[in-house]
Protein backbone atom coordinates (compact mmCIF):
# COMPACT_ATOMS: atom_id res chain seq x y z
CA UNK A 1 0.00 0.00 0.00
CA UNK A 2 1.47 3.39 -1.00
CA UNK A 3 -0.95 5.45 1.07
CA UNK A 4 -4.04 4.93 3.17
CA UNK A 5 -7.00 7.13 3.97
CA UNK A 6 -9.07 6.94 7.11
CA UNK A 7 -12.03 8.98 8.27
CA UNK A 8 -11.56 9.99 11.89
CA UNK A 9 -13.99 8.29 14.24
CA UNK A 10 -14.80 9.36 17.78
CA UNK A 11 -13.33 6.84 20.24
CA UNK A 12 -16.27 7.44 22.62
CA UNK A 13 -19.42 7.49 20.51
CA UNK A 14 -18.05 6.21 17.13
CA UNK A 15 -19.42 9.29 15.39
CA UNK A 16 -17.71 10.44 12.21
CA UNK A 17 -18.79 14.03 12.70
CA UNK A 18 -15.74 15.96 13.89
CA UNK A 19 -14.55 19.55 14.18
CA UNK A 20 -11.01 20.83 13.61
CA UNK A 21 -9.83 23.37 16.14
CA UNK A 22 -6.76 25.08 14.72
CA UNK A 23 -4.43 26.37 17.43
CA UNK A 24 -1.92 29.02 16.36
CA UNK A 25 0.58 30.06 18.99
CA UNK A 26 3.69 32.24 18.54
CA UNK A 27 6.86 30.20 18.54
CA UNK A 28 5.05 26.85 18.14
CA UNK A 29 4.00 24.86 15.11
CA UNK A 30 0.31 25.09 14.28
CA UNK A 31 -1.66 22.31 16.00
CA UNK A 32 -5.06 20.98 15.07
CA UNK A 33 -7.23 19.42 17.79
CA UNK A 34 -9.97 17.20 16.45
CA UNK A 35 -13.14 17.17 18.58
CA UNK A 36 -16.20 15.00 18.19
CA UNK A 37 -19.14 17.15 17.10
CA UNK A 38 -21.59 14.80 18.80
CA UNK A 39 -20.13 14.20 22.27
CA UNK A 40 -17.23 16.72 22.37
CA UNK A 41 -14.61 14.04 23.08
CA UNK A 42 -10.97 14.46 22.09
CA UNK A 43 -10.33 12.50 18.89
CA UNK A 44 -6.81 13.38 17.76
CA UNK A 45 -4.16 16.09 17.53
CA UNK A 46 -2.11 16.95 14.45
CA UNK A 47 1.02 19.10 14.40
CA UNK A 48 1.38 20.90 11.09
CA UNK A 49 4.55 21.35 9.14
CA UNK A 50 2.85 23.80 6.78
CA UNK A 51 -0.70 25.10 6.55
CA UNK A 52 -2.38 25.33 3.18
CA UNK A 53 -5.82 26.84 2.85
CA UNK A 54 -8.40 26.42 0.12
CA UNK A 55 -6.40 29.10 -1.68
CA UNK A 56 -3.10 27.22 -2.12
CA UNK A 57 -1.47 30.02 -4.08
CA UNK A 58 -1.96 32.51 -1.24
CA UNK A 59 -0.52 29.91 1.15
CA UNK A 60 2.47 29.56 -1.14
CA UNK A 61 3.06 33.33 -1.10
CA UNK A 62 3.06 33.36 2.71
CA UNK A 63 5.43 30.39 2.84
CA UNK A 64 7.78 31.97 0.30
CA UNK A 65 7.91 35.22 2.23
CA UNK A 66 9.35 33.37 5.21
CA UNK A 67 12.27 32.32 3.04
CA UNK A 68 10.81 28.87 2.55
CA UNK A 69 12.49 28.58 -0.81
CA UNK A 70 15.61 30.61 -0.77
CA UNK A 71 17.88 28.84 -3.22
CA UNK A 72 17.24 29.72 -6.82
CA UNK A 73 17.41 26.11 -7.91
CA UNK A 74 15.51 24.49 -10.73
CA UNK A 75 14.01 21.78 -8.54
CA UNK A 76 12.79 24.38 -6.07
CA UNK A 77 11.29 26.46 -8.84
CA UNK A 78 9.56 23.38 -10.25
CA UNK A 79 8.22 22.61 -6.79
CA UNK A 80 6.77 26.10 -6.55
CA UNK A 81 5.34 25.87 -10.04
CA UNK A 82 3.48 22.68 -9.22
CA UNK A 83 2.40 23.71 -5.71
CA UNK A 84 -1.32 24.30 -6.31
CA UNK A 85 -1.64 21.48 -8.81
CA UNK A 86 -0.07 18.99 -6.40
CA UNK A 87 -2.49 19.89 -3.61
CA UNK A 88 -5.46 19.67 -5.97
CA UNK A 89 -4.35 16.25 -7.27
CA UNK A 90 -3.62 14.88 -3.80
CA UNK A 91 -6.97 16.07 -2.48
CA UNK A 92 -8.80 14.36 -5.34
CA UNK A 93 -6.75 11.19 -4.87
CA UNK A 94 -7.45 11.20 -1.14
CA UNK A 95 -11.20 11.65 -1.47
CA UNK A 96 -11.45 8.93 -4.10
CA UNK A 97 -9.39 6.34 -2.23
CA UNK A 98 -11.15 3.55 -0.28
CA UNK A 99 -11.28 4.34 3.41
CA UNK A 100 -9.49 2.00 5.80
CA UNK A 101 -10.86 0.83 9.11
CA UNK A 102 -7.38 0.49 10.63
CA UNK A 103 -6.32 2.82 13.41
CA UNK A 104 -4.10 5.71 12.29
CA UNK A 105 -1.28 4.40 14.51
CA UNK A 106 -1.53 1.03 12.77
CA UNK A 107 -1.44 2.65 9.32
CA UNK A 108 1.61 4.69 10.30
CA UNK A 109 3.39 1.58 11.61
CA UNK A 110 2.53 -0.41 8.50
CA UNK A 111 3.61 2.27 6.03
CA UNK A 112 6.83 3.06 7.85
CA UNK A 113 7.90 -0.57 8.14
Amino acid at each position, binding site marked *: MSFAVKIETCPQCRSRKTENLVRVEP*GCPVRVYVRCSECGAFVARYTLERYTSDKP*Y*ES*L*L*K*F*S*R*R*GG*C*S*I*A*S*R*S*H*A*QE*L*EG*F*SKKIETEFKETTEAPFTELKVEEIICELKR
Partner: protein
Amino acid sequence: MKLGWRIFFVTLSAAAFAGICFAPIPGMDTAARHTLAVFVLALILWVSEAIPLYIASLVIAALLSIFVAQHLPVADYKIFLAPFFSPVILLFLGGFVLARGLESYGLDSVLASAILRKVGKKPAAILAGFMGVTALLSMWMSNTAATALMIAVALPLIRSIDEKDPMRIGLLLCIPFSANLGGMATPIGTPPNAIAIAALRDAGVQINFLEWMGIALPATLILLVLAWILILILFRPKTKALSFSLHKAKKLGWKEWVVLTTLLVTVLGWLTGRFHRIPDAIVALLPALIFFSLGLLRRKDFRSLGWDVLILMGGGLALGKAVAVSGLDKWLVTSLGMEGLPPVALFVGFILLTVVLTNFISNTSSAALIVPLTMGFAGGSNSLVVGVALAASASMLLPVSTPPNAIAFGSGLLKVKHMFRTGIIVAVIAIGVILMFGLVIWPRLGII
Protein backbone atom coordinates in the same frame (compact mmCIF):
# COMPACT_ATOMS: atom_id res chain seq x y z
CA MET B 1 13.83 13.93 -10.42
CA LYS B 2 13.41 10.17 -10.28
CA LEU B 3 15.81 8.11 -8.18
CA GLY B 4 17.21 6.38 -11.27
CA TRP B 5 18.28 9.70 -12.78
CA ARG B 6 19.75 10.83 -9.49
CA ILE B 7 21.86 7.68 -9.27
CA PHE B 8 22.88 8.12 -12.91
CA PHE B 9 24.10 11.70 -12.42
CA VAL B 10 25.87 10.94 -9.14
CA THR B 11 27.62 7.97 -10.80
CA LEU B 12 28.46 10.10 -13.82
CA SER B 13 29.95 12.84 -11.63
CA ALA B 14 31.98 10.29 -9.66
CA ALA B 15 33.22 8.64 -12.86
CA ALA B 16 34.16 12.01 -14.38
CA PHE B 17 35.95 12.94 -11.17
CA ALA B 18 37.93 9.70 -11.06
CA GLY B 19 38.67 9.81 -14.78
CA ILE B 20 40.12 13.33 -14.69
CA CYS B 21 42.00 12.68 -11.44
CA PHE B 22 43.90 9.77 -12.96
CA ALA B 23 44.14 10.94 -16.57
CA PRO B 24 47.52 12.40 -17.50
CA ILE B 25 46.90 15.88 -18.87
CA PRO B 26 49.99 17.42 -20.52
CA GLY B 27 51.24 20.61 -18.92
CA MET B 28 48.92 20.37 -15.95
CA ASP B 29 50.19 19.67 -12.45
CA THR B 30 48.40 17.41 -9.99
CA ALA B 31 46.69 20.17 -7.96
CA ALA B 32 45.21 21.76 -11.08
CA ARG B 33 44.14 18.38 -12.46
CA HIS B 34 42.40 17.40 -9.25
CA THR B 35 40.74 20.82 -9.11
CA LEU B 36 39.51 20.32 -12.67
CA ALA B 37 38.09 16.97 -11.57
CA VAL B 38 36.21 18.62 -8.68
CA PHE B 39 35.08 21.40 -11.02
CA VAL B 40 33.57 18.91 -13.49
CA LEU B 41 31.92 17.02 -10.62
CA ALA B 42 30.46 20.29 -9.33
CA LEU B 43 29.26 21.17 -12.82
CA ILE B 44 27.40 17.85 -13.16
CA LEU B 45 25.90 17.95 -9.67
CA TRP B 46 24.87 21.62 -9.83
CA VAL B 47 23.42 21.39 -13.32
CA SER B 48 21.59 18.10 -12.77
CA GLU B 49 20.54 18.87 -9.16
CA ALA B 50 20.83 15.14 -8.53
CA ILE B 51 21.56 15.93 -4.88
CA PRO B 52 20.61 19.17 -3.09
CA LEU B 53 22.81 22.06 -4.20
CA TYR B 54 24.10 22.72 -0.68
CA ILE B 55 25.05 19.07 -0.19
CA ALA B 56 26.98 19.24 -3.46
CA SER B 57 28.82 22.21 -1.92
CA LEU B 58 29.85 20.11 1.07
CA VAL B 59 31.03 17.35 -1.27
CA ILE B 60 33.13 19.93 -3.14
CA ALA B 61 34.71 21.19 0.09
CA ALA B 62 35.50 17.64 1.19
CA LEU B 63 37.04 16.62 -2.15
CA LEU B 64 39.12 19.79 -2.36
CA SER B 65 40.40 19.19 1.17
CA ILE B 66 41.32 15.58 0.43
CA PHE B 67 42.56 15.68 -3.15
CA VAL B 68 43.78 19.20 -3.82
CA ALA B 69 45.14 20.57 -0.52
CA GLN B 70 47.95 18.01 -0.24
CA HIS B 71 49.36 19.05 -3.63
CA LEU B 72 49.55 22.75 -2.87
CA PRO B 73 52.85 24.41 -1.84
CA VAL B 74 51.42 25.08 1.61
CA ALA B 75 49.32 21.99 2.18
CA ASP B 76 46.46 23.14 4.39
CA TYR B 77 42.95 21.92 3.81
CA LYS B 78 41.54 24.75 5.92
CA ILE B 79 41.80 27.16 2.99
CA PHE B 80 38.86 25.29 1.49
CA LEU B 81 36.80 25.42 4.67
CA ALA B 82 37.45 29.08 5.49
CA PRO B 83 35.18 30.33 2.67
CA PHE B 84 32.19 28.88 4.54
CA PHE B 85 32.65 31.60 7.15
CA SER B 86 34.21 34.26 4.97
CA PRO B 87 33.27 37.94 5.26
CA VAL B 88 30.76 37.75 2.39
CA ILE B 89 28.99 34.84 4.07
CA LEU B 90 28.76 36.89 7.25
CA LEU B 91 27.51 39.86 5.22
CA PHE B 92 24.80 37.68 3.73
CA LEU B 93 23.89 36.25 7.11
CA GLY B 94 23.39 39.81 8.36
CA GLY B 95 21.20 40.50 5.34
CA PHE B 96 19.09 37.43 6.11
CA VAL B 97 18.59 38.53 9.73
CA LEU B 98 17.64 42.03 8.62
CA ALA B 99 15.14 40.65 6.12
CA ARG B 100 13.68 38.28 8.73
CA GLY B 101 13.23 41.22 11.11
CA LEU B 102 11.47 43.28 8.45
CA GLU B 103 9.22 40.39 7.48
CA SER B 104 8.42 39.29 11.04
CA TYR B 105 7.19 42.75 12.00
CA GLY B 106 5.43 43.38 8.68
CA LEU B 107 7.71 46.30 7.86
CA ASP B 108 8.25 45.12 4.31
CA SER B 109 4.49 45.43 3.77
CA VAL B 110 4.43 48.80 5.52
CA LEU B 111 7.20 50.09 3.25
CA ALA B 112 5.56 48.69 0.12
CA SER B 113 2.17 50.17 1.02
CA ALA B 114 3.67 53.57 1.92
CA ILE B 115 5.28 53.89 -1.50
CA LEU B 116 2.38 52.43 -3.48
CA ARG B 117 -0.03 54.90 -1.89
CA LYS B 118 1.82 57.70 -3.68
CA VAL B 119 1.75 56.29 -7.21
CA GLY B 120 -1.72 57.45 -8.21
CA LYS B 121 -4.14 55.69 -10.52
CA LYS B 122 -2.50 55.69 -13.94
CA PRO B 123 -1.58 52.15 -15.05
CA ALA B 124 1.93 53.19 -16.12
CA ALA B 125 2.57 54.80 -12.74
CA ILE B 126 1.19 51.79 -10.88
CA LEU B 127 3.43 49.50 -12.93
CA ALA B 128 6.42 51.71 -12.15
CA GLY B 129 5.44 51.71 -8.48
CA PHE B 130 5.29 47.92 -8.27
CA MET B 131 8.56 47.56 -10.15
CA GLY B 132 10.33 50.15 -8.04
CA VAL B 133 9.14 48.74 -4.71
CA THR B 134 9.92 45.15 -5.70
CA ALA B 135 13.41 46.11 -6.83
CA LEU B 136 13.97 48.18 -3.69
CA LEU B 137 12.95 45.28 -1.45
CA SER B 138 14.97 42.71 -3.35
CA MET B 139 18.07 44.85 -2.86
CA TRP B 140 17.87 44.06 0.86
CA MET B 141 15.99 40.79 1.09
CA SER B 142 15.78 37.62 -0.99
CA ASN B 143 14.34 38.01 -4.48
CA THR B 144 11.90 35.22 -3.66
CA ALA B 145 10.58 36.87 -0.51
CA ALA B 146 10.25 40.25 -2.28
CA THR B 147 8.30 38.62 -5.12
CA ALA B 148 6.01 36.72 -2.76
CA LEU B 149 5.18 39.89 -0.84
CA MET B 150 4.58 42.04 -3.89
CA ILE B 151 2.47 39.47 -5.72
CA ALA B 152 0.32 39.13 -2.61
CA VAL B 153 -0.14 42.93 -2.67
CA ALA B 154 -0.77 42.98 -6.44
CA LEU B 155 -3.16 40.00 -6.69
CA PRO B 156 -6.37 41.81 -5.67
CA LEU B 157 -5.55 44.56 -8.16
CA ILE B 158 -4.69 42.05 -10.91
CA ARG B 159 -7.93 40.15 -10.33
CA SER B 160 -9.92 43.39 -10.50
CA ILE B 161 -8.60 44.21 -13.97
CA ASP B 162 -10.66 43.10 -16.96
CA GLU B 163 -9.54 39.66 -18.15
CA LYS B 164 -8.92 40.95 -21.68
CA ASP B 165 -6.69 43.78 -20.50
CA PRO B 166 -3.01 42.91 -21.15
CA MET B 167 -2.15 44.98 -18.07
CA ARG B 168 -2.96 41.91 -15.94
CA ILE B 169 -0.09 39.99 -17.47
CA GLY B 170 2.21 43.00 -17.48
CA LEU B 171 1.67 43.66 -13.80
CA LEU B 172 2.25 40.05 -12.87
CA LEU B 173 5.38 39.74 -15.01
CA CYS B 174 6.96 42.98 -13.85
CA ILE B 175 7.29 41.70 -10.27
CA PRO B 176 9.65 38.72 -10.73
CA PHE B 177 11.62 40.63 -13.35
CA SER B 178 12.09 43.58 -10.99
CA ALA B 179 13.07 41.24 -8.16
CA ASN B 180 15.72 39.59 -10.34
CA LEU B 181 17.03 42.96 -11.50
CA GLY B 182 16.85 44.60 -8.06
CA GLY B 183 19.02 41.85 -6.61
CA MET B 184 21.92 43.06 -8.74
CA ALA B 185 22.18 46.41 -6.98
CA THR B 186 23.64 45.53 -3.56
CA PRO B 187 26.20 42.98 -2.35
CA ILE B 188 23.45 41.28 -0.30
CA GLY B 189 20.86 41.42 -3.08
CA THR B 190 21.71 38.00 -4.46
CA PRO B 191 24.51 35.43 -3.88
CA PRO B 192 26.28 35.90 -7.27
CA ASN B 193 27.24 39.44 -6.20
CA ALA B 194 28.89 38.10 -3.07
CA ILE B 195 30.70 35.41 -5.07
CA ALA B 196 32.15 38.10 -7.37
CA ILE B 197 33.15 40.31 -4.42
CA ALA B 198 34.89 37.39 -2.69
CA ALA B 199 36.71 36.37 -5.87
CA LEU B 200 37.93 39.91 -6.46
CA ARG B 201 38.98 40.23 -2.83
CA ASP B 202 41.07 37.08 -3.17
CA ALA B 203 42.70 38.69 -6.19
CA GLY B 204 43.53 41.77 -4.12
CA VAL B 205 40.67 43.99 -5.36
CA GLN B 206 38.55 45.27 -2.48
CA ILE B 207 34.99 46.33 -3.28
CA ASN B 208 32.97 47.58 -0.34
CA PHE B 209 29.20 47.91 -0.09
CA LEU B 210 29.02 51.48 -1.39
CA GLU B 211 31.43 50.77 -4.22
CA TRP B 212 29.36 47.80 -5.37
CA MET B 213 26.26 49.97 -5.36
CA GLY B 214 28.14 52.64 -7.32
CA ILE B 215 29.01 49.99 -9.90
CA ALA B 216 25.75 48.03 -10.09
CA LEU B 217 22.96 50.43 -9.14
CA PRO B 218 23.11 52.60 -12.30
CA ALA B 219 22.96 49.48 -14.48
CA THR B 220 20.04 48.15 -12.40
CA LEU B 221 18.13 51.43 -12.71
CA ILE B 222 18.61 51.54 -16.47
CA LEU B 223 17.47 47.94 -16.77
CA LEU B 224 14.40 48.61 -14.65
CA VAL B 225 13.41 51.61 -16.75
CA LEU B 226 13.91 49.67 -19.99
CA ALA B 227 11.95 46.69 -18.63
CA TRP B 228 9.15 49.07 -17.59
CA ILE B 229 9.00 50.59 -21.09
CA LEU B 230 9.07 47.13 -22.66
CA ILE B 231 6.22 45.83 -20.50
CA LEU B 232 4.16 48.94 -21.26
CA ILE B 233 4.70 48.38 -25.00
CA LEU B 234 4.04 44.63 -24.96
CA PHE B 235 1.14 44.75 -22.52
CA ARG B 236 -0.38 48.15 -23.30
CA PRO B 237 -3.01 48.84 -20.62
CA LYS B 238 -6.56 49.32 -21.90
CA THR B 239 -7.85 51.02 -18.79
CA LYS B 240 -7.08 54.67 -18.19
CA ALA B 241 -7.18 54.50 -14.41
CA LEU B 242 -7.01 51.82 -11.77
CA SER B 243 -7.77 51.95 -8.13
CA PHE B 244 -6.58 49.50 -5.56
CA SER B 245 -6.89 49.26 -1.84
CA LEU B 246 -4.02 48.68 0.48
CA HIS B 247 -4.13 47.62 4.09
CA LYS B 248 -4.53 50.49 6.52
CA ALA B 249 -1.25 51.98 7.70
CA LYS B 250 -0.10 49.91 10.65
CA LYS B 251 0.76 51.76 13.85
CA LEU B 252 4.36 51.07 14.69
CA GLY B 253 5.19 49.91 18.21
CA TRP B 254 8.60 50.00 19.91
CA LYS B 255 9.66 46.70 18.37
CA GLU B 256 8.94 47.91 14.86
CA TRP B 257 10.86 51.12 15.55
CA VAL B 258 13.84 49.13 16.83
CA VAL B 259 13.82 47.02 13.65
CA LEU B 260 13.53 50.10 11.43
CA THR B 261 16.27 51.96 13.29
CA THR B 262 18.53 48.90 13.10
CA LEU B 263 17.90 48.70 9.36
CA LEU B 264 18.81 52.34 8.89
CA VAL B 265 21.90 52.17 11.10
CA THR B 266 23.11 48.99 9.39
CA VAL B 267 22.62 50.36 5.89
CA LEU B 268 24.30 53.60 6.94
CA GLY B 269 27.16 51.55 8.38
CA TRP B 270 27.53 49.71 5.08
CA LEU B 271 27.45 52.91 3.05
CA THR B 272 29.97 54.75 5.19
CA GLY B 273 32.55 51.98 5.54
CA ARG B 274 35.21 54.20 4.00
CA PHE B 275 35.01 56.60 6.95
CA HIS B 276 34.61 54.35 9.98
CA ARG B 277 36.75 51.48 8.61
CA ILE B 278 34.58 48.78 10.15
CA PRO B 279 34.31 45.97 7.60
CA ASP B 280 30.88 45.44 6.02
CA ALA B 281 30.79 41.87 7.38
CA ILE B 282 31.17 43.16 10.95
CA VAL B 283 28.51 45.84 10.42
CA ALA B 284 26.26 42.99 9.25
CA LEU B 285 26.37 41.48 12.75
CA LEU B 286 24.47 44.43 14.20
CA PRO B 287 20.94 43.25 13.27
CA ALA B 288 21.63 39.80 14.71
CA LEU B 289 23.00 41.28 17.95
CA ILE B 290 20.06 43.61 18.41
CA PHE B 291 17.18 41.41 17.23
CA PHE B 292 18.20 38.30 19.13
CA SER B 293 19.43 40.07 22.27
CA LEU B 294 16.18 42.00 22.63
CA GLY B 295 14.08 38.93 21.87
CA LEU B 296 12.66 40.46 18.70
CA LEU B 297 13.64 37.29 16.87
CA ARG B 298 13.89 33.85 18.42
CA ARG B 299 15.96 30.72 18.06
CA LYS B 300 13.38 29.34 15.66
CA ASP B 301 14.06 32.33 13.37
CA PHE B 302 17.81 31.81 13.66
CA ARG B 303 17.49 28.16 12.77
CA SER B 304 15.35 28.89 9.73
CA LEU B 305 17.66 31.47 8.16
CA GLY B 306 18.87 30.63 4.65
CA TRP B 307 21.66 28.31 5.77
CA ASP B 308 21.30 26.30 2.57
CA VAL B 309 22.14 29.42 0.56
CA LEU B 310 25.16 30.14 2.73
CA ILE B 311 26.48 26.60 2.39
CA LEU B 312 25.93 26.71 -1.36
CA MET B 313 27.82 29.99 -1.54
CA GLY B 314 30.58 28.58 0.65
CA GLY B 315 31.07 25.68 -1.78
CA GLY B 316 31.20 28.08 -4.68
CA LEU B 317 33.77 30.24 -2.93
CA ALA B 318 35.88 27.18 -2.03
CA LEU B 319 35.81 26.05 -5.64
CA GLY B 320 36.83 29.52 -6.78
CA LYS B 321 39.69 29.49 -4.29
CA ALA B 322 40.87 26.11 -5.57
CA VAL B 323 40.74 27.20 -9.21
CA ALA B 324 42.96 30.18 -8.33
CA VAL B 325 45.49 28.56 -5.98
CA SER B 326 45.93 25.44 -8.09
CA GLY B 327 46.65 27.50 -11.19
CA LEU B 328 43.77 25.90 -13.09
CA ASP B 329 42.52 29.31 -14.22
CA LYS B 330 45.85 30.19 -15.83
CA TRP B 331 46.08 26.72 -17.40
CA LEU B 332 42.63 27.06 -18.96
CA VAL B 333 43.44 30.50 -20.34
CA THR B 334 46.70 29.41 -21.95
CA SER B 335 45.81 25.88 -23.05
CA LEU B 336 42.46 26.79 -24.54
CA GLY B 337 44.14 29.59 -26.48
CA MET B 338 41.96 32.25 -24.92
CA GLU B 339 44.90 34.54 -24.19
CA GLY B 340 44.98 35.79 -27.74
CA LEU B 341 41.27 36.53 -27.91
CA PRO B 342 40.24 40.18 -27.92
CA PRO B 343 38.89 41.27 -24.49
CA VAL B 344 35.58 42.29 -26.08
CA ALA B 345 35.06 38.79 -27.49
CA LEU B 346 35.89 37.24 -24.11
CA PHE B 347 33.55 39.59 -22.29
CA VAL B 348 30.69 38.91 -24.70
CA GLY B 349 31.35 35.16 -24.59
CA PHE B 350 31.35 34.92 -20.81
CA ILE B 351 28.27 37.12 -20.40
CA LEU B 352 26.34 35.09 -22.99
CA LEU B 353 27.43 31.83 -21.38
CA THR B 354 26.31 33.08 -17.96
CA VAL B 355 22.91 34.26 -19.17
CA VAL B 356 22.24 30.96 -20.93
CA LEU B 357 23.37 28.92 -17.93
CA THR B 358 21.51 30.96 -15.31
CA ASN B 359 18.22 30.39 -17.09
CA PHE B 360 18.56 26.66 -16.61
CA ILE B 361 20.41 26.28 -13.31
CA SER B 362 20.57 28.20 -10.03
CA ASN B 363 22.02 31.70 -10.40
CA THR B 364 24.36 31.04 -7.48
CA SER B 365 25.68 27.88 -9.12
CA SER B 366 26.12 29.73 -12.43
CA ALA B 367 28.20 32.42 -10.77
CA ALA B 368 30.12 29.85 -8.71
CA LEU B 369 31.09 27.98 -11.87
CA ILE B 370 31.86 30.91 -14.16
CA VAL B 371 33.40 33.52 -11.85
CA PRO B 372 36.47 31.34 -11.08
CA LEU B 373 37.06 30.85 -14.80
CA THR B 374 36.98 34.59 -15.43
CA MET B 375 39.58 35.15 -12.72
CA GLY B 376 42.25 33.92 -15.10
CA PHE B 377 41.68 37.16 -16.98
CA ALA B 378 41.02 39.28 -13.91
CA GLY B 379 44.30 41.12 -14.18
CA GLY B 380 43.05 42.58 -17.42
CA SER B 381 39.40 42.99 -16.58
CA ASN B 382 37.83 43.01 -13.13
CA SER B 383 34.70 44.33 -14.78
CA LEU B 384 34.29 40.90 -16.40
CA VAL B 385 33.87 39.34 -12.95
CA VAL B 386 31.26 41.92 -11.95
CA GLY B 387 29.58 41.56 -15.36
CA VAL B 388 29.25 37.81 -14.88
CA ALA B 389 27.73 38.33 -11.42
CA LEU B 390 25.13 40.72 -12.85
CA ALA B 391 24.45 38.45 -15.82
CA ALA B 392 23.73 35.60 -13.39
CA SER B 393 20.65 37.55 -12.29
CA ALA B 394 19.22 37.67 -15.81
CA SER B 395 17.06 34.58 -15.20
CA MET B 396 14.00 35.83 -17.02
CA LEU B 397 13.01 33.23 -19.59
CA LEU B 398 11.25 30.36 -17.89
CA PRO B 399 9.21 29.68 -14.76
CA VAL B 400 11.91 27.25 -13.63
CA SER B 401 14.72 29.75 -14.18
CA THR B 402 14.36 31.14 -10.68
CA PRO B 403 11.81 30.98 -7.80
CA PRO B 404 10.47 34.54 -8.40
CA ASN B 405 9.45 33.48 -11.92
CA ALA B 406 7.95 30.26 -10.56
CA ILE B 407 5.93 32.18 -7.96
CA ALA B 408 4.48 34.51 -10.60
CA PHE B 409 3.72 31.56 -12.84
CA GLY B 410 2.07 29.71 -9.97
CA SER B 411 -0.75 32.29 -9.99
CA GLY B 412 -2.20 30.46 -12.98
CA LEU B 413 -2.69 33.76 -14.80
CA LEU B 414 0.49 33.54 -16.87
CA LYS B 415 1.43 31.31 -19.74
CA VAL B 416 5.00 30.22 -20.43
CA LYS B 417 4.92 32.10 -23.74
CA HIS B 418 4.21 35.39 -21.90
CA MET B 419 7.23 34.91 -19.70
CA PHE B 420 9.48 33.60 -22.46
CA ARG B 421 8.69 36.29 -25.03
CA THR B 422 9.11 39.13 -22.57
CA GLY B 423 11.92 37.49 -20.65
CA ILE B 424 14.07 36.89 -23.70
CA ILE B 425 13.90 40.57 -24.62
CA VAL B 426 14.69 41.62 -21.03
CA ALA B 427 17.62 39.17 -21.01
CA VAL B 428 18.94 40.58 -24.31
CA ILE B 429 18.57 44.13 -22.95
CA ALA B 430 20.41 43.02 -19.79
CA ILE B 431 23.24 41.60 -21.89
CA GLY B 432 23.45 44.89 -23.82
CA VAL B 433 23.46 47.03 -20.68
CA ILE B 434 26.06 44.84 -18.93
CA LEU B 435 28.29 44.97 -22.02
CA MET B 436 27.89 48.73 -22.23
CA PHE B 437 28.85 49.19 -18.58
CA GLY B 438 31.53 46.50 -18.55
CA LEU B 439 33.28 47.47 -21.74
CA VAL B 440 32.76 51.22 -21.81
CA ILE B 441 31.46 52.91 -18.68
CA TRP B 442 33.24 51.13 -15.79
CA PRO B 443 36.67 51.16 -17.47
CA ARG B 444 36.32 54.83 -18.52
CA LEU B 445 35.28 55.90 -15.06
CA GLY B 446 38.00 53.69 -13.60
CA ILE B 447 35.67 52.42 -10.89
CA ILE B 448 36.70 48.75 -11.07
